[in-house]
């Protein structure tokens, strides 16, 4: 209840970067076909950087400009009753659980609860049916303002529940420059996603 918010913010960022440097290996994703998780195949037309470890909470995440700028996240093979997002949610936080019976709007609500857990804002701009993983899925666009640095971001995501498992790919980047720059490439990449048997 004082200016501890500022100190906390700085400390958390510093600590996160410190831990990330120790525990988050960055690997290059080369042009060609890449596999994410157990069986998600993606056709890559330009090199990306893949982050792992603590900074991305175990969710495979790619970036063009750096993890604090743009992030392409792959939520794959999430089964009924499984936690969505970080495998270890923050202490005391009610975990976000995926249920196979969820409607697209419920999955968006689940996604937005992850995005807003630090106080960031979230506005759904569009939710529509879309082809994804070779079948009927959904696509949504959203806007957020990150609480930590108040950067306005724009995002797009595709999702589908297939045989009771959730697959969702999201991309977000600063609204004015980076999102429009990379959106066509990201949408093309997402359309190329397929499942290996």
């Amino acid at each position, binding site marked *: *209840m004082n*200016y501890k918010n500022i100190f*906390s913010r700085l*400390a958390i960022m510093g600590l996160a970067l410190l831990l990330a440097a120790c525990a988050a290996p960055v690997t290059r994703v080369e042009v060609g076909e890449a596999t994410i998780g157990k069986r998600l195949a993606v056709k890559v037309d330009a090199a990306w950087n893949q982050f792992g470890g603590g900074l991305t909470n175990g969710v495979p995440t790619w970036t063009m400009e750096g993890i604090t700028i743009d992030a392409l996240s792959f939520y794959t093979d999430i089964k009924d009753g499984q936690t969505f997002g970080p495998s270890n949610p923050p202490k005391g936080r009610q975990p976000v659980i995926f249920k196979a019976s969820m409607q*697209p709007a419920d999955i968006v609500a689940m996604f937005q609860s992850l995005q807003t857990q630090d106080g960031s804002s979230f506005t759904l701009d569009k939710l529509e049916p879309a082809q994804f993983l070779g079948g009927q899925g959904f696509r949504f666009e959203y806007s957020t*303002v990150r609480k930590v640095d108040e950067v306005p971001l724009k995002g797009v995501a595709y999702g589908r529940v297939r045989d009771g498992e959730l697959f969702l790919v999201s991309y977000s980047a600063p609204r004015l420059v980076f999102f429009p720059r990379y959106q066509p490439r990201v949408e093309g990449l997402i359309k190329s996603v397929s499942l290996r048997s």
Partner: protein
Amino acid sequence: MRRRALIGCAQCLALSSLLGPAASRAQSSWLAPPRFERPDVASEEGGLWAMMDREETRLRRSPFILRDAGLQTYLQDMASKLAGSHAPDVRVYPVRTPFFNASMAPNGMMQVWTGLLLRVDNEAQLAAVLGHEIGHYMQRHTLERLRDIKSRSAFGMFMSMFGLVGLVGQMAAIAGAFGFSRDQERQADHIGLALMRQAGYDTREAAKVWDNLRLELAAVHGGDPSQRSPLFASHPGSAERSGTLAELAAGDSGGYLGEEEHRRALAGLQAQMLDDELKRGQTNETLALLNRLIERQPERADLLYSRGEARRLRAAVGDPELAYADFERAVALGSEPAECHRALGYLHRSRDQADRAREAFTRYIDKAPAAPDAALIKSLL
């Protein structure tokens, strides 16, 4: 003068522990320090103020600031009433963040988060929190903490001479410096109550703030709020706090509640605050909050819709039936938000009631044709 005020406060604290409720009346004799002059910029306090001035400049431009002139005036008037002679130096900023929190910087910048505004039942409860924050300001608690940080930093530098172990020691020293100490929080509670009393508020409402929050957090944390709330983490235990405040107010009677005024000031923000609360996805906490709000205002369709939606999203055993009852009640009241029909449509759909789902979705689209999910809903018709 400040020294006298501190001694006065310390005496009150000591007396209250000895005399119980009788001491509460002594609190009203607490003397506020005179208005602060701007500290010399070369001093450590001046540096602290300069840092907070920069933060305030950033805050004024922040997209999280609520630019609602009516609410701004309402909060500023409240803070002025509580701050007395310090009123010209306290500036209140309502911030759109759905967590229970308020903060006070040493230069007089106060932030009040919407999660707090949603959770208090009346103006007196809000005054208890604002008074507490002004208590920190009047006692210059931040400066005390800064000096504490400095001494910890010196310790940390010494530890860092020993490599990794030293680094850990340094981090622990810095971590311990966040927030006010528990003693400072207790002192701010006492001063907050004295300021409430001087401003004419019903001091018996102060303990209810913490009781209500404790109930909400207990819905998730099994009765241990310190496990979650950043506020409780550095504050005295909520049971102790509530008990002390109730004891201090026990000798008081009457006072201003301001329930209607509080509702009026927040009327235009309710939909946004409830929407932000739902977006958190912390349905257990949200349901504890909404149960309490609906108990006080059972005829509010927006509250009923929000509770129904929290239940629909949680989808525990029995939740869909209870959600359905809330939605139906909201529709019967006639002022339900459009989203209530969308939620009904999803419920009918999950029960394979295609006709009823179509009817509800159609109503949603009629009421909100430009809704962001209109394309998806139309595909379900």
